[in-house]
């Protein structure tokens, strides 16, 4: 078995407010919100607002395909031409349905693990949802504390419930530092189980 490689992880809430900067060094906008794909497994892109304290939302958006790089301090794009009209990235209703914050995380054998307070993203060739930060329920023994629950490659999202395999409980982390390895190990376990 190969050791899972560490992942570079970001919290969706941390991406909000980050500057969008072109490779020619111009500030285009700030990230307003993360837009999830309806499947819940990936990011469709970002809605934008103008930079500044009392800034307005913009009618354009940044699709994930237009992102050149995403790091601690900025979201980089080749140029403003990668922006698309905001209604093309997600119609208003779909964006609301795909918002997983406060949704309940249920295991496939029916345990309520808690409610989602943030989404953990992995930045690679796509921006993938790899876990949820959850306010733990009584079922976890760490009730009320925030913990990180890893996700499989695909996850079912209904608008209220997020279903994860029961095995996810064995890979829960209390901090983000160790979570990348937990996601890798959890997914390796699921693949072994499937083969």
């Amino acid at each position, binding site marked *: 078995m190969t050791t899972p490689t560490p992942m570079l992880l970001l919290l969706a809430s941390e991406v909000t407010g980050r500057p969008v900067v072109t490779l020619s*060094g111009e500030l285009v906008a700030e990230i307003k919100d993360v837009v999830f794909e309806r499947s819940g497994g990936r990011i469709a892109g970002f809605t934008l607002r103008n930079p500044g304290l009392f800034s307005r939302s913009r009618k354009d958006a940044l699709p994930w395909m237009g992102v050149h790089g995403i790091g601690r301090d*900025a979201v980089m794009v080749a140029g403003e031409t990668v922006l698309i009209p905001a209604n093309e990235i997600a119609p208003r209703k779909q964006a609301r349905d795909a918002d997983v914050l406060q949704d309940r995380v249920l295991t496939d054998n029916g345990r309520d693990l808690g409610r989602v307070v943030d989404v953990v993203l992995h930045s690679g060739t796509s921006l993938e949802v790899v876990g949820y930060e959850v306010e733990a329920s009584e079922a976890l023994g760490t009730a009320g504390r925030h913990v990180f629950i890893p996700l499989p490659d695909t996850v079912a999202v209904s608008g209220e419930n997020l279903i994860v395999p029961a095995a996810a409980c064995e890979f829960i982390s209390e901090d983000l530092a160790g979570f990348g390895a937990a996601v890798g190990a959890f997914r390796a376990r699921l693949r072994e189980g499937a083969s």
Partner: protein
Amino acid sequence: MLFSHARKRDVVNTATATRVARVDGFVVLPGPARVALLRLGKVSGAGTLLAWEDVRGFGPDAVTVANDAVIRPPRDGLEQRAEDNDLEILGKRVITERGMELGSITDVDFDPETGAVTTLLTKTETIAGQRMIGLGGYAVVVSA
């Protein structure tokens, strides 16, 4: 030669042997990173820009030009921004193409023969000039 050492140097007209301006700043452009223009102060005319190709020599004591006419106003939007100091590289934040900040530019090393920018310096980093991808109003962007 560092920008910090090259600033304030006199610009001398070799035809008249008179001092015609002083170097106030440098306009760097990417691809490849080079000093494209000098921003001048203490000029007698309206123009404050001097294109690198109009510099006869960038010596240890003075910058020489063949005549005063090469000191000119901006010719396009980019040069106007340069004159307005919007593209000043010193003090500008450096961001990698992966979205990580590396601090702010404290000094720049360049080749006085060719104008090529060899190194960008921040408080903690020494960045090869070849890594520079872009320079705008917000940041200097460098390859990861």
